């Protein structure tokens, strides 16, 4: 089942394109990465999903409900963290939990304080005295405290230190493994690679890719380094098609593997090699290809 279904979504700001003809399905129970450079339309899409923007054309549905018309019903089961988080200056976590709990009509205090402990946030500090990172933690706790079915996070790790980022990743993986869903916008490739099961990539308001990380990895080239024992035979050596050699320096070759590692290992088994290294698939190159 898809928790988010976006069909032919177009949002125009006057003549400027926010997103155009976007189609997207986010399956339940996974961390879905939403990637794209600045201005590619990620935040516009998210703002349509949470009912802040009205689509110019097309539709966006969450849990099968219309994002605009049924926005308040959808948000009962959604935790949302805006990209540019601003909070009331007088707010502390201790004040926010009862107020937000009354608005959500459920008790958030226990879970909120447990999360505060996990993310190391003092519940008595007012927003006006908080650093950006502390405000981000407060926003995250308020998005997580009601244990939503779907989390929509717009660049949530900005201004978090690496330790907190790692804690957040762990928390999000736990959420996904419990069958809940995370829609995670980012422009940091490494965190998407580390965290997400599937990614959609936007560029200039258009969807340019929507694939699982495994599919992307299988298509990504791997860097291969081969050191030959003897360079006498190298001149006559037949290089297979799945190996794209781009640098030969004496006995050492640098190449890109476009086929499977199994084919390479079988081929090299009969060759006089001294050593061989096959690196992890280079997803950054794949992403960059979509970005450019």
């Amino acid at each position: 089942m898809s928790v988010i279904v976006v069909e032919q979504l177009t949002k125009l700001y006057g003549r400027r394109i926010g997103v155009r003809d976007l189609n997207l399905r986010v399956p339940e129970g996974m961390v879905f990465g939403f990637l794209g450079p600045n201005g590619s339309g990620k935040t516009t899409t998210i703002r349509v999903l949470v009912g802040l923007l009205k689509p110019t054309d097309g539709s966006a549905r969450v849990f099968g409900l219309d994002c605009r018309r049924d926005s308040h019903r959808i948000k009962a089961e959604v935790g949302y963290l805006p990209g540019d988080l601003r909070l009331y200056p007088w707010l502390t976590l201790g004040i926010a939990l009862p107020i937000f709990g009354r608005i959500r009509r459920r008790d958030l205090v226990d879970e909120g304080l447990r999360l505060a402990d996990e993310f190391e946030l003092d519940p008595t500090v007012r927003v006006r005295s908080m650093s950006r990172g502390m405000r981000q933690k407060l926003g995250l706790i308020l998005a997580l405290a009601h244990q939503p079915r779907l989390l929509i996070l717009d660049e949530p790790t900005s201004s978090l230190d690496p330790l907190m980022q790692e804690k957040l990743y762990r928390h999000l993986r736990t959420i996904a493994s419990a069958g809940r869903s995370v829609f995670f916008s980012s422009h940091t490739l490494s965190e998407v690679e580390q965290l997400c099961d599937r990614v959609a990539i936007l560029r200039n308001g258009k969807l340019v890719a929507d694939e699982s990380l495994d599919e992307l990895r299988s298509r990504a080239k791997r860097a291969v380094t081969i050191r030959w024992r003897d360079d006498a035979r190298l001149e006559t050596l037949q290089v297979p098609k799945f190996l794209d050699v781009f640098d030969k320096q004496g006995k050492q070759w640098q190449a890109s593997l476009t086929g499977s590692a199994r084919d390479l290992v079988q081929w090299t088994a009969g060759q006089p090699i001294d050593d061989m290294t096959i690196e992890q698939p280079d997803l950054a190159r794949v992403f960059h290809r979509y970005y450019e």
Partner: protein
Amino acid sequence: MNRGLIAKTIREIWLVTLLFALGIFTFEALIAYMLPLFDQDILDYWAKMPFLNGMFQALFGTEIGETIGPGMIATTAWVHPIVLIMVWAHGIICCTRVPAGEVDRGTIDVLLGLPVSRTRVYVCESLVWLTSGLVILAAGLAGNLLGNRVATSETQGATGHLLIVLVNLYGLYVAVGAMAFFVSCWSDRRGRAVGVAFAIVLAGYVLNFLAQFWQPARSISFLSFQHYYRPLLIIREGAWPTSDILVLATVSVVFWLAGAIVFNRRDICTV
């Protein structure tokens, strides 16, 4: 109604309401105490001067005759520009908070990220605003009664008449606030919304003032909120200004509903 939204709104406006309530209480107490101290001859002399007579008429919203009686003195406490500015300012401050204020400071993303409809946010804001308006006027009434009691003057209007004036003033407060809500619903900047709302009220006040001297202004003075607030007639005659209150109520409902429609339909952009 949502208790959480109400609690959040109260948290945001209690201080400004308290300050305005204290301000209006103090001013009403002082003016109710001090006005009777003016010499009656001086007041009558002022009333006979054509320009001042026109100004008084503009202020009181009706013909004042050639003498300034106790009713007029009692009325002054409720038409004084400082009182009116405090009442308008409180209404405009409260009614430009949502959505213009929330969009301006970027907090609306968090507010509308909660499971509440925009209509519910608008209604809860309005309820707190309407209640805080009652607090402000009650503080003014308390100050006025206290000032009169200390002065032990004969200028005090009948309390029943005074309550009718307050109802009329509350109608004015609600109309100004509803107009401010409407302006706020179109705006992304609170400063701009406050400026536009205040300019509209001030323009109406000036129009009502000019209407006493200038025929073209008189013909369009019905556009001014102030045109429907004439406390001297109430204090003199004790009659309910039914038509004025109805006009103010109608204007309020129209502005408030139009604001709600605009707020529900508009895009919210904070970036």
